[in-house]
């Protein structure tokens, strides 16, 4: 689990004996050399560079702990037309329905936002927000309220943006603000890296001895400088020691996105903060994270919107009234679970939101809307399972878009989804009833394929592996090759796992061409295909069989008495899915992939085989992937077997060239040709 090999900093610092580099950056004072600066040498192509990004976090013991974040940022712009306004955005959280410009309530963060950390009681006080654009000739325009506007990101989270008057090549933008917040748990992640390069980035945090955060370093960069010193906090005779820590990153490259990843938010250099405990003098210690035990207790015993939803009969009375009559004839646990799953999956709509907690205090209220978040729907299933005395355990996870989890940290914020692990007649099955009509019982929504999840069970909580089913695609064809070069015959296809889900969905969308047919038509534009007949189209828990006959007019090319053709007519890998030469991020594949072709081709009378492609067996180390290819002759027919398997789901950037090479060879092999020659009198 290399993915989880992050650096953990639980305040066990060496006191670095480095003299902290003094960087004076004050709002309103931009040195002449920065106005005159023409390129940023480490990245001469950058449209802009963050000259300095400086954050200071301080804590106050009053009102049972609060913090102040002071933030100053200075950006040099070289090419205003290539410059994205979002590069000078502040992500903010504001209360519903209020106009943020007229309100003092806003949380300012950049990068990933955990909306779950906020409660309605939190007070945020944004002060001294000021911003300015300074032209290279020194002309300074201070931004007024009219130059500031907002954009909704999701839920209550907004981005505060600035219109930038008089922005010219060479202009410098600066902004600063101070934020006072009352809830220590809302301290957001701090990032040293962004989509443009950063020359200097610093975070100073003064941690009192009565406060503990788990600080998790993100990204694969080390800080240029890291210091810690002891200082004393004093306020009219009241005092305590503080640990003053500084993190400095210099010349941080721009963060660039890539494909086959979970979410970009997992990759920038930064620090995540998770509140552990507050132990103010003469007060009881308040544990925020402490132990997994506390988390389990909170979910299963104390909280309103988790276990109580399915434990209290009154919470799900209406739901029970709807489902229980359907269960009367069900005998086995599996039959019951199937009915409950189908009912919730088909009759309740998912509102496209993931959450660990239900959206209301009873399931009845959610049932009345016939619509809910991921926790609402899965806890509905839990409620009826509970009623039917079928044993289950909720599993928390973080969806692929939401980012990685921290197995060492008992924080609720790392999760955003809950599924169920159910024991059905002695068999363990996973349930994710989030309204996907093509997803069978036992399979997770594709977004939920997070590789691991956390089991919520008193005393028996633990991380569990979530092994997704293989997406298999088997193509079986029986073709006759005609003397005029036409291939015709019967095609059978068997799809299972996520491929079956995909295919059933596409079949429901369009009755004209199926996924298999589309892929064939892409390779052979003038293929003629009959309508497909299906087996198990409605039985979503079974493999999907389909069958059709087809005629491929130009499958071959002939010249004189020689005929050439490629026996592989169907594949998803004619082109390498990994085309980039290099890659900076790991490859993250959601589920194992298997593709298999078994094709028999009966040769036309009067032709003999001149050349057959060589057989091949190609593997990736440690059983990560395998490619088998073999063409054999049996009497007057040719049989091709091609098998592609990818079982490992996570590859480090260093492994990328090997994975790319594997698929390069596959793509080349799939194009190889068979050569036939007409038998002439002289041959005999």
């Amino acid at each position, binding site marked *: 689990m290399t993915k989880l090999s992050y650096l953990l900093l639980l305040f066990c610092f060496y006191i670095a004996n480095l003299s902290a580099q003094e960087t004076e950056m004050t709002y309103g004072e931009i040195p002449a050399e920065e106005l005159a600066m023409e390129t940023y040498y480490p*990245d001469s192509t950058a449209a802009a560079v963050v000259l300095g990004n400086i954050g200071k976090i301080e804590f106050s013991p009053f009102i049972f702990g609060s913090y102040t974040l002071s933030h100053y940022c200075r950006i040099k712009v070289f090419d205003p037309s290539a410059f994205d306004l979002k590069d000078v955005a502040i992500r903010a959280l504001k209360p519903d329905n209020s106009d943020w410009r007229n309100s003092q309530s806003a949380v300012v963060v950049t990068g990933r936002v955990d909306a779950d950390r906020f409660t309605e009681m939190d007070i945020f006080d944004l002060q001294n927000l000021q911003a300015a654009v300074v032209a290279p000739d020194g002309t300074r325009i201070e931004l007024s309220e009219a130059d500031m506007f907002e954009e909704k990101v999701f839920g209550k989270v907004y981005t505060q943006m600035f219109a930038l008057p*008089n922005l010219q090549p060479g202009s410098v933008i600066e902004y600063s603000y101070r934020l006072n917040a009352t809830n220590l748990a809302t301290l957001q992640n701090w990032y040293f890296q962004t989509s443009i390069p950063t020359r200097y980035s610093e975070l100073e945090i003064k941690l009192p001895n009565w406060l503990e955060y788990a600080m998790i370093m993100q990204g694969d960069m080390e800080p240029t400088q890291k210091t810690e010193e002891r200082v004393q906090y004093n306020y009219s005779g009241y005092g305590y020691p503080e640990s003053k820590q500084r993190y400095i990153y210099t010349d941080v490259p721009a963060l660039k996105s890539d494909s086959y990843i979970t979410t970009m938010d997992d990759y920038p250099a930064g620090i995540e903060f998770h509140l552990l405990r507050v132990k103010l003098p003469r007060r009881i210690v308040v544990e925020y994270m402490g132990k997994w035990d506390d988390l389990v207790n909170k979910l299963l015993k104390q909280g309103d919107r988790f276990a109580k939803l399915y434990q209290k009969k009154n919470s799900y009375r209406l739901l029970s009234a709807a489902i229980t009559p359907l269960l009367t004839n069900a005998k086995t646990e599996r039959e019951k679970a199937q009915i409950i799953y189908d009912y919730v999956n088909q009759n309740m*709509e998912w509102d496209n939101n993931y959450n660990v907690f239900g959206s209301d205090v009873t399931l009845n209220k959610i049932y009345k*809307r016939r619509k809910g978040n991921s926790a609402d729907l899965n806890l509905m299933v839990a409620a009826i399972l509970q009623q039917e005395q079928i044993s289950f355990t909720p599993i928390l996870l973080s969806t692929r878009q939401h980012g990685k989890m921290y197995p060492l940290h008992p924080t609720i914020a790392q999760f955003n989804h809950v599924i169920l692990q159910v024991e059905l007649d002695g068999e363990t099955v996973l349930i994710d009833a989030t309204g996907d009509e093509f997803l069978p019982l036992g399979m997770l929504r594709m977004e939920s394929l997070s590789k691991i999840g956390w089991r919520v069970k008193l005393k028996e909580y633990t991380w569990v592996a979530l092994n997704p089913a293989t997406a298999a695609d088997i193509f079986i064809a029986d073709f006759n090759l005609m003397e005029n070069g036409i291939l015709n015959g019967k095609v059978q296809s068997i799809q299972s796992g996520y491929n079956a889900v995909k295919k059933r969905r596409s079949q429901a969308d369009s009755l004209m061409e199926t996924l298999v047919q589309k892929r064939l038509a892409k390779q052979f534009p003038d293929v003629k295909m009959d309508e497909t007949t299906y087996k198990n189209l409605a039985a979503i828990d079974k493999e999907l069989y389909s069958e059709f006959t087809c005629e491929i007019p130009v499958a071959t*090319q002939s010249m004189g008495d020689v005929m050439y053709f490629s026996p592989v007519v169907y594949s998803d890998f004619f082109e390498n899915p990994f085309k980039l*030469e290099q890659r900076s991020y790991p490859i993250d594949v959601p589920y194992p992939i298997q593709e298999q072709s078994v094709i028999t081709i009966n040769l036309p009378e009067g032709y003999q085989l001149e050349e057959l492609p060589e057989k091949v067996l190609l593997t990736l180390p440690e059983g990560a992937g395998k490619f088998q290819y073999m063409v054999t002759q049996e009497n007057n027919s040719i049989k091709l077997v091609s098998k592609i398997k990818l079982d490992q789901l996570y590859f480090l950037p260093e492994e990328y060239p090997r994975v790319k090479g594997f*698929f*390069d060879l596959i793509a080349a092999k799939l194009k190889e040709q068979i050569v036939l020659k007409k038998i002439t009198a002289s041959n005999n």
Partner: protein
Amino acid sequence: MKYFFQLLLIVLPLIASATNKPQYAVSNILPELLENAEVVIREDFTTFNVLTPATAELKARMVITRLRDDASYDDLTIGYDMHTKVNRISAAIYDKNGALVRKIGKKEIQDYSAVDGFSIYTDSRLKYIDLSYGEYPYTIEYEYEKSYKGIQSYPGWYLQGFDTSVEKSGYVLTLANSLDVKYEVFNLSVEPEIQSAGGKKVYRWSAENLPVIEAESYSPSAMNILPKVLFAPEKFTIDGYTGSMTDWESFGKFMYELNDGRGELSAAMKAEIKKLTAEATTDTEKIEVLYRYIQDNMRYVSVQLGIGGWQTFDAAYVEKNKFGDCKALTYFMRTMLEEIGITAYPALVYAGRDKERAATEDFTFPLFNHVILNVPSADYWLECTSADSPPNYLGTFTDDRPVLLVTENGGVFSQTPTIPIEDNLQKNVATITLDEKGTATVTNQSILTGTQQEYYRGLEKNQSREDIKKYFSRIVDLPSFTLKDYELSSSMDAPQAEFSYEVEIPRYGSKAGKRLFLPLNVINPMSGIPDKVKERKFPVQIKRGYVEQDEFQYILPDGTTVESMPEKTATITSDFGTYEMEISQEKNVITYRRTLKINPITAPAERYTDWRNFCKEVAKLDKMKVVLIQEKT
């Protein structure tokens, strides 16, 4: 006390009406209206009562059955601004049998600033109600009233979108006798019933049982297919400005007056203009110098405030901030030209690649969302919001479509130029050197002009060299390759870009024993064949033409001979386009020449198969291979 009763009267009928409505049961819908439908509009009634040129009242009522969870209409969104006010909203949800599920409470009506995703500020706001319910099908019912103090245009009657059928729809327009209106019915045959009574004229339109319309690819855009009725008032007043949609001349006059007198430049700016144009001798040179000045110094930022985005910011605002929206930048450019005695006219246009909407000459309805600048003396068209575009190039954003020139004498209906097919050229000249293992070194030089260069220009201007290199495999579609080098440049004077690259493709030719299979067109084959369809309804429309010219030279490895060569020439001729291909061989060099020309065309629906076949034939010819054989040594 009197007021109290009036209030009751307004409120009561609505609340009383929200009970079970068996008539909404889904079982009452005609089967032909359910066919392919995601949504069935059960009732859609709008009353627009115009009291004076500046004031009006709108009443709307809709009953909609949603059949699927991905269907539209899962909310009610009512826009308003400083000229309009939403007076009353009520809404309810019914299940498939018409039984009331719930009424929407006051607390559920949310109020938002209308952030459109690209404007930096706007004074538009929204009333929003979530009308979703998880058990399908279900029916929503809503009513609202809106009052107008300032009229910019009358709301149109849009009967249906795609995948939507209609049971009953109606629109009632009431005008004070002193007012007049023109109307136009699009994609529907329906006549209004006109009555005159009590000092008022009443127009009533109605339609019922309209089946679903499904979207099709390569068809005219949605706006030219879907039924609607639009209104052109003879007189309307907003913010003290009075205008008319009687004809284009008078509407243009209104736009002129709205924006007149907003072009005062500072003395410094005037001096700057003089300095900039001092060297220029001809008008076109002067235009280009000033256009370049705008491109280099001003940025495009959308600002939607005041009179519905029709009135520009004054020149001083642009001069100070160095940014503006399309109006502000266009008017600023016009003012600069005026300063040196060149007359230019803002041209209102509906921008977009798909040429989505088109105003028509004989019906004055301002289907515009953008403004560009026309300089008649030089026959120049200037897109003032683009920092990268060459002068006098409109491109796919605003080419070939109707515009309204705003002149001091009123509006003049006109048309932007069409780019000739031959000017939209992609020319590739490549050399492919092969070794005996099938590895190819490919050098390709492309010249791109007209619409074909837009993508490459955008790439050059907006992406770093490092990014282009990294994502090269997404820019050129070739089999797995290694990039050696590339060059990309675009001209600031003409719509032209040049793009060249050298790559190595390890398995370009595929081997089978002593044979090597060599595909002839890997660099620029036809991709994306139109989908097969069962029944085509709308005409086939190819909106723009273009030409591709390819000349590829294959240098064969030593010791190989050609065993098999496809037909040496091929030609396809159709009114959709022409394709010509020619192969020749001289010693160890095979030369492949290909020309593909696609014509802009609108053809009847039944020709869709011909269009598909044309593409298929081209794709088939693009797949040809040469077979090489290793000589015995």
